[in-house]
């Protein structure tokens, strides 16, 4: 860790939020450094919004601490925190013009009038809505409202910006466009941003680091490529990207070849990473695009199976391959050569680079 980053701008330590006997947030600890773009990723009910609400001050933690810029803020009122926030539905004040919406945080801070006019104009320029100052929110499109919400959250120059699924209400094309704009804005403002989403693709595109949450607990923290390539458990493997899981028990293991008995009863001889011993129950994760279908005359392959189905998706072909009795693997192949692939019912041989297969923690072993 670099010297500049030694002190995190925001630390969550053993944060808990308990409603009755329901643990919405259970022992969450994260250190966030200045300028980082952190994403809290998880399905609904994972506690990601509750964590954000506690940082914003809308909810108080049942236990644990929130340290912001060196000060504990666990019980500080939201208006005293000086943290910007973009809400899921934008939460623009419908009875105020765009100018008044953006001026609101400045008025609350008793900034003088000339300064307000200057700052609002500056931030409206930044989000390219200079001509819309006199409109009411309902006269703007969804994407424009989104940008106004962003402008209002940064106009008072908060050191930390919270974003609660801000792109959720936009259609796919606009969402992708806004992702790029958000990323640009982050590079330009160098602000620390905490982004909440349930969309793993969005998280991968935007984040410096992703915090994967499930049932109020952190499953894994890491940069996007690390989470994708090295998921530590079944939840992360399934939630981020697509993955094939091979679950079973090691029958025997000699040198680098092991015999794996899958849960469907079939036995396969293959290379497993790390140290496995006979009798171990294991769960292997294999991403679909890492599976290579090899020609029949090839001798260097890992498994054989029967092709069940082929789906043509344009740039890729998707194969469903049955190995053993009923274990299905998904494989993906770029549509580069216009070769005639195998047909359903054909026997196929599949292979992968040795480091592509990962041992992960399974929830059901």
């Amino acid at each position, binding site marked *: 860790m670099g010297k500049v980053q030694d002190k995190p701008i925001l630390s969550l330590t053993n944060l808990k939020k308990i409603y009755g006997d329901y643990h919405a947030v259970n022992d969450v600890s994260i250190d966030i450094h200045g300028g980082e773009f952190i994403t809290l990723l998880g399905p609904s009910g994972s506690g990601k919004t509750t964590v954000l609400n506690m940082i914003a*001050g809308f909810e108080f933690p049942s236990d644990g601490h929130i340290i912001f810029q060196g000060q504990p803020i666990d019980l500080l009122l939201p*208006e005293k925190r000086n943290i910007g926030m973009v809400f899921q539905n934008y*939460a623009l004040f419908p*009875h105020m013009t765009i100018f008044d919406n953006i001026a609101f945080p400045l008025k*609350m801070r008793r900034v003088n009038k000339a300064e307000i006019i200057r700052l609002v104009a500056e931030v409206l320029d930044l989000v390219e809505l200079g001509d819309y100052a006199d409109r009411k929110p309902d006269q703007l499109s969804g994407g424009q409202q989104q940008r106004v919400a962003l402008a209002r959250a940064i106009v008072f120059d908060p050191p930390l910006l919270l974003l609660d699924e801000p792109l959720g209400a936009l259609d796919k094309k606009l969402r992708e466009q806004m992702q790029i704009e958000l990323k640009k804005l982050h590079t330009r403002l160098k602000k620390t941003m905490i982004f909440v989403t349930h969309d793993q693709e969005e998280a991968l595109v935007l984040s410096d680091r992703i915090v994967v949450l499930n049932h109020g607990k952190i499953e894994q923290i890491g940069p996007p490529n690390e989470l994708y390539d090295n998921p530590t458990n079944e939840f992360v493997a399934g939630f981020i990207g697509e993955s094939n899981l091979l679950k079973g028990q090691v029958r025997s293991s000699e040198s680098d070849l092991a015999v794996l008995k899958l849960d469907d009863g079939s036995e396969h001889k293959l290379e497993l990473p790390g140290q496995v011993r006979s009798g171990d129950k294991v769960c292997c994760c294999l991403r679909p695009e890492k599976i290579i279908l090899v020609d029949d005359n090839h001798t260097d392959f890992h498994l054989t199976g029967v092709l069940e189905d082929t789906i043509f998706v344009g740039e890729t072909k998707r194969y469903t391959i049955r190995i053993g009795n009923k274990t299905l693997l998904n494989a993906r192949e770029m549509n580069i050569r216009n070769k005639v692939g195998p047909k359903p019912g054909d026997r196929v041989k599949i292979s992968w680079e040795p480091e592509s297969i990962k041992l992960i923690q399974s929830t059901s072993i």
Partner: protein
Amino acid sequence: MNPSAPQEKRILLIGFVTLILFFLILPTLMVIPMSISETRYLVLPPKGFTLKWFLQFFTDPRWLGPTLLSLRVALFSAVLSVVLGTLASLALVRGRLPGKRVIYIMLMSPMMIPVIVIGFAAYGMFVRFHLIGTTIGIVLAHCIICIPFSVVVISANLQRVDISLELAARNLGASARQAFFRITIPSIKPGIFAASLFCFVESLDELIMTMFIIGTTKMTLPLRIFTEIRFRISPVIAAASTVFVIVATLAIVISTYIDKKK
């Protein structure tokens, strides 16, 4: 409209609806021709044309006094009911309190219990506090009737206001009080306006509660009309009623217009 419905059925339906509308509105409209008759008693159809009954209504202290008292009471009742109704709605919609449902039903109960019962009960209470015959007594009695309306209208409005607006205001640096006055109140303005109008009209024509509370020295407009109709069948009653109808119609027109603008 279902285009495949047979023509006769449609005509029947239109006729039926027209009949109901007439049934609802015609008796009310009858007071207008009666108020311009030159005769010294109420007749229909009117004989001749005069506005002297209106003149008498607006000048005779026997009519003017009760009218002014009714307006004053209606104004106070509306303001008090709306302020209390807004506070109650906030607690019911935004608050985290146990037994919300029970509190709501208790607030609504004056709508369901016969007014005569409430009037009788209030009389017993008000006597102890020496409120019988006082303006404040009448206002309080009317509030019992008005508050449920006010709560229904305002809480329905508040329910549609996204709570994240208030959270956003707090996040941007507004105290709870500032968020309430700058964000919440402007957002429920239509509801507050509608409730004010409703409570004002409700108080203006309240009779049963008034009769219990008013004592012997005061007189409201509805009570004046009621006593007049028993002892003198003067066309001033029709004139007063006509003024009533016009005021109420205006109120409805204004509120629909404002509603449409929203």
